[in-house]
C-alpha cells in the first residue's frame, strides 16, 4: 500500500484530505530507483484549482511517457494544512510518491496569474528550499518557472533558477538530457545553469545584470557572462496535431473546478484585441486536426469516466472545423448522457443552434463579452463586436426562449471617458429593451441582464503595455459612475451590476509590469503572512500596503505613469515573435480609434509569420 506523508490525525482534522493523498485514477506511479530524473510539477494554488489546469496535465503526460523521468504533482497546501506543516515541520511532498519535494531533481512551477506569487514562496518555503536562487546548493531541486507570467519573469527573477519561455512541449527533453549529462560529468549546479542558458527559450536570471536610471526606469539589461544570449526566443509547437496530449488525464476523487474532459482545439487567437496578452503570446494561431480531436474525445471519456466534455480555446468560434467537431460530439455522446459544454463561443445563429442541441434544459444564461460599452471604446481596444451584432444575437436568443444574459466589461481602459462608462448600462438597457419587444405572451417572464466589470490591467507584450493604470480610489469612483448610470435606465429592474474589487487589480498591475526590484515587496508581503491572495477570504490588502511601505516601493511608479515608447521595459529581452514595431503601431492606431483586421481577413504583419506555421500559412497552402 502507498504510504502517506501526513498522519491520520492530521488527515482527519483538515478540510478535504483528498487534496493530499494522491492515488487518483490515472495518476502515474514509477519506481524511483528506475528513473534518472524526478520532476515535481507544481501549480501554486489549492488542489481543486491546480487539477483543473490543462497545461499541467499535458506536461505530466509528456514527462511520464519518458522512461527515465517520473513527474509528480504538487499543489499549495490550503491554509489549514499550511499552519500544521509549519508547526510540525512537515516538508512539502509530491502527491504520487508522497516524498519530500526537496529530494527531487526539478521543481517546475506554473505561473498562471500574478496573485499566486506569494504561493510560489509558500511552496518553496514549505519544501525547505531557500527562497532566493542564490542561496541554493546542489542539494536543492532546480526551480523552473513557466506559463504566461513567465513572459515577464522579472518580479520573480530572484526566486527561480531558470524560466522556460514558450510551449512546454518543445525543449524540455533537451533540458533534462543536459541535466543527466552534467550529472554524469560531475558538473555543479552553476555548470548546469550556464549550459542551460544556451538552450533556446531558457532564461537564467542570475546570468544577467540590470542597471537603473535615476528616475527608476531600466537603464540596461544584459548577460553578465559570455555565450549567454541577449534575447530569449519563445519556443513554439508548430503542429499541435503531432504533439503530446493526455489521453489518460488524472481523475480527482473530489470535485474540482474543471471536472470534465477538456479538448484543446487550438492555441492562439486570430482576433488581436489590444488588451489581451494571450492573443499576442500564442501567435500564430494553430489548430488541432479535427480527426485527432475526435479520437482524443472518445479515448479520454473512456479512460476517465467523466460525464462532461468541454472545448478549450481563446475563441472557439474561430476554429475552422467547429461544426464538424460539434456534430460529432453530439451524435456520438449525447445519447450516452455526456454533457457537452462550449465556452467562448460568439453568439450567433450557429452557436445558438448548437447550444439548443447540446442542452436539454434551456435554463443557462447567454454570455457576451463586449469588454467596452461604447463603439468608440471598442474600436480603441480592437474588439470586433458591434452593438448590432450583440443586439441581433441577444434577440435571436430571446426568441429562442433564453431570458438571462451575462455581460462582461472592463473599466479604466486607455482614453476612457465618462461617456464610455455610461455606455455600459446603456447597452445593458438596450438588450433588455430588445427582450421586451417580444410580445408578452411569447416571452417567459422578465429578463435578467447581469453586468460585471473588472478593471483593465495593461500586460506585457500587448499594444497597451505602455498604458497607465489608476489608483484604487479612482477605480472605485469609475465603478460608482457606472452604478449610478444603471439607476437611470428604463429597465433598471431587470439589470444587475457587479464590480470587482480594485485592491487586487492594483497589485496585479504592479507585478504584471514590474521589474526585479519588486521581488523585495513579494518577500516582505510573504514575511508579513500573505498567501492565497487570489482568494478574497484570505487576501489582506493592509499587509500588502505595509510591504510596499517597508521596502520603499512606489505602486504609482509601476502603475500610474504612461511609459514612453523608447523606455527599456523589463521584458524587452524576450522575443515572442510579435515585434515591438507592431505593438507600437497598434498602440498608435488604438489612440486614433482605428480597427485592425483579424489574421484571417488580412495579415497585419505582426512578426509571428517568421515561425512559418499556423494561421500565417493557411492562405499559402
Amino acid at each position: 500500500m502507498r504510504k502517506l506523508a501526513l498522519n491520520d490525525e492530521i488527515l482527519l482534522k483538515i478540510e478535504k484530505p483528498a487534496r493530499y493523498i494522491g492515488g487518483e485514477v490515472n495518476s502515474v506511479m514509477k519506481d524511483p530507483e528506475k528513473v534518472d530524473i524526478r520532476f515535481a510539477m507544481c501549480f501554486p494554488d489549492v488542489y481543486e484549482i491546480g487539477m483543473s489546469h490543462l497545461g499541467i496535465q499535458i506536461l505530466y503526460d509528456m514527462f511520464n511517457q519518458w522512461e527515465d523521468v517520473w513527474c509528480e504533482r504538487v499543489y499549495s497546501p490550503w491554509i489549514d494544512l499550511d499552519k500544521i506543516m509549519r508547526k510540525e515541520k512537515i516538508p512539502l511532498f509530491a502527491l504520487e510518491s508522497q516524498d519530500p519535494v526537496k529530494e527531487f531533481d526539478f521543481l517546475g512551477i506554473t505561473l498562471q496569474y500574478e496573485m499566486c506569487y506569494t504561493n510560489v514562496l509558500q511552496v518553496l518555503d514549505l519544501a525547505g528550499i531557500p527562497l532566493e536562487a542564490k542561496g541554493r546548493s546542489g542539494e536543492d531541486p532546480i526551480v523552473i518557472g513557466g506559463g504566461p507570467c513567465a513572459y515577464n519573469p522579472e518580479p520573480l527573477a530572484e526566486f527561480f533558477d531558470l524560466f522556460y519561455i514558450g510551449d512546454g512541449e518543445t525543449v524540455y527533453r533537451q533540458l533534462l538530457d543536459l541535466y543527466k549529462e552534467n550529472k554524469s560529468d560531475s558538473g555543479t549546479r552553476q555548470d548546469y545553469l550556464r549550459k542551460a542558458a544556451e538552450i533556446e527559450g531558457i532564461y537564467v536570471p542570475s546570468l544577467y545584470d540590470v542597471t537603473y536610471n535615476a528616475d527608476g526606469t531600466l537603464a540596461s539589461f544584459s548577460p553578465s557572462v559570455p555565450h549567454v544570449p541577449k534575447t530569449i526566443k519563445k519556443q513554439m509547437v508548430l503542429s499541435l496535431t503531432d504533439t503530446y496530449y493526455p489521453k489518460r488525464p488524472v481523475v480527482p476523487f473530489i470535485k474540482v473546478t474543471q471536472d470534465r474532459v477538456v479538448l484543446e482545439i487550438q492555441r492562439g487567437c486570430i482576433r488581436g484585441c489590444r488588451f489581451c496578452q494571450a492573443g499576442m503570446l500564442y501567435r500564430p494561431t494553430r489548430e488541432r486536426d479535427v480527426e485527432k480531436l475526435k479520437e482524443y474525445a472518445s479515448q479520454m471519456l473512456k479512460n476517465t469516466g467523466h460525464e462532461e466534455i468541454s472545448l478549450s480555446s481563446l475563441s472557439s468560434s474561430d476554429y475552422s472545423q467547429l461544426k464538424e467537431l460539434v456534430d460529432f460530439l453530439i451524435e456520438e455522446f449525447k445519447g450516452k448522457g455526456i454533457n457537452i459544454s462550449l465556452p467562448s463561443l460568439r453568439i450567433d445563429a450557429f452557436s445558438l443552434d448548437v447550444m439548443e442541441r447540446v442542452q436539454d434544459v434551456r435554463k443557462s444564461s447567454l454570455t457576451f463579452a463586449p469588454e467596452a460599452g461604447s463603439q468608440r471604446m471598442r474600436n480603441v481596444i480592437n474588439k470586433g463586436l458591434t452593438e448590432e451584432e450583440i443586439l441581433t444575437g441577444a434577440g435571436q436568443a430571446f426568441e429562442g426562449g433564453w431570458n438571462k444574459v451575462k455581460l462582461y466589461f472592463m473599466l479604466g481602459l486607455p482614453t476612457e471617458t465618462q461617456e464610455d462608462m455610461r455606455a455600459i448600462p446603456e447597452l445593458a438597457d438596450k438588450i433588455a429593451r430588445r427582450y421586451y419587444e417580444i410580445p408578452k405572451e411569447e416571452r417567459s417572464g422578465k429578463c435578467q441582464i447581469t453586468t460585471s466589470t473588472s478593471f483593465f490591467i495593461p500586460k506585457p507584450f500587448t499594444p497597451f503595455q505602455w498604458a497607465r493604470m489608476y489608483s484604487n480610489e479612482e477605480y472605485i469612483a469609475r465603478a460608482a459612475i457606472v452604478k449610478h448610470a444603471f439607476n437611470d435606465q428604463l429597465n433598471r429592474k431587470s439589470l444587475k451590476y457587479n464590480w470587482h474589487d480594485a485592491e487586487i487589480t492594483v497589485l496585479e498591475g504592479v507585478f504584471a509590469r514590474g521589474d526585479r526590484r519588486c521581488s523585495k515587496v513579494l518577500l516582505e508581503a510573504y514575511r508579513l503572512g500573505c498567501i492565497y491572495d487570489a482568494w478574497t477570504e484570505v487576501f489582506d490588502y493592509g499587509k500588502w500596503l505595509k510591504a510596499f511601505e517597508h521596502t520603499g516601493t512606489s505602486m504609482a511608479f509601476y502603475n500610474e505613469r504612461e511609459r514612453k515608447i523608447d523606455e527599456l521595459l523589463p521584458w524587452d529581452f524576450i522575443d515572442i515573435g510579435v515585434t515591438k514595431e507592431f505593438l507600437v503601431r497598434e498602440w498608435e492606431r488604438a489612440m486614433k480609434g482605428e480597427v485592425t483586421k483579424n489574421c484571417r481577413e488580412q495579415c497585419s504583419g505582426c512578426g509571428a509569420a517568421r515561425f512559418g506555421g499556423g494561421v500565417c500559412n493557411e492562405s499559402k497552402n
Partner: protein
Amino acid sequence: MKARIKFRKYGSLRFIGHLDVMRYFQKVMRRSEIPIAFTGGLGVGVTSDGEYLDIELTAPVASERAVAKMNAVMAEGIEVLSFVQIPDEKKYSGMTITAAADYRVTVLESARSAEQTRCIPGILKAQAEHFLGQEEIKVWKTTKRSEMEVDIKPIIYDMQVGDADIRLFLAAGSEHNLKPDLVMEAFLDFCGEEKGAYPFHFHRIDVYAKNPDAWADEKAAHVRGAGLVTLESLGKKIGE
C-alpha cells in the same frame, strides 16, 4: 434490471467521503462500460469491508465479468467484492431495507496511524457488562435542527469486548441509525474516561437487512439475530 454492488474501502481511500465515493463510482461505471441508468454512508476516516451501492442496469452483465471490469479501472483503496441482481420492487432497495451494521473497533497506539493497534484496555473490558446492563443508555444526539437526549440501549444489538477489538452490532438505516463513535463515546463516559482518551479506528464489516425473504440465498446469508441477513445475500448472481 437492478443490481447491487458490494465493495470494500481501505487504506487512503478512507479519507474519501460518502458523496465523493458515489461520484467516483459513477465514473467507474463509465470506464468499465457497465450499462447503468443511478440510485444511492460512511463518514470520513472509516474503512469498510461492507459498502453497498444499488444501481439500475439498462442491460444485464454477468456478475463475475462486472466485478473484473470494475476492478480493472479501480484506484488503490477500493475494491468491488460482488455484483448481484436484486428484485426490481422499491421495497428491496438498499436504503429501505437496511436494518443493522456490524463494526470492528480497534484502539490505536496513536491517532496518527490506523495501522498500529493495541490491546483493548482493561477498564473497557471490565466495564462492558455493566455498561450493557444499564436500564437505559442516554446520549445527546445532535441533528441539523436540534439536540436531544435519546436512549440508545435498544438499538445496540450486540457488543463484545475482546482482547484485540470491540465488536459492535448496531441499528442502521432510515428507521434507527446508530453510529459506532457515539456508542464508544457513551462507553468511555460510563467508564469515567475522558472523551478522546483512546484513539479508535472504526471498520465496518457488513450491512444487514431485515428480510427473511425467498430471495435470500439461505446458504450464503450470514444470518445474525432476528432474521437479519447481509444485503449481499438478498441478491442473486447474474450468469453469462
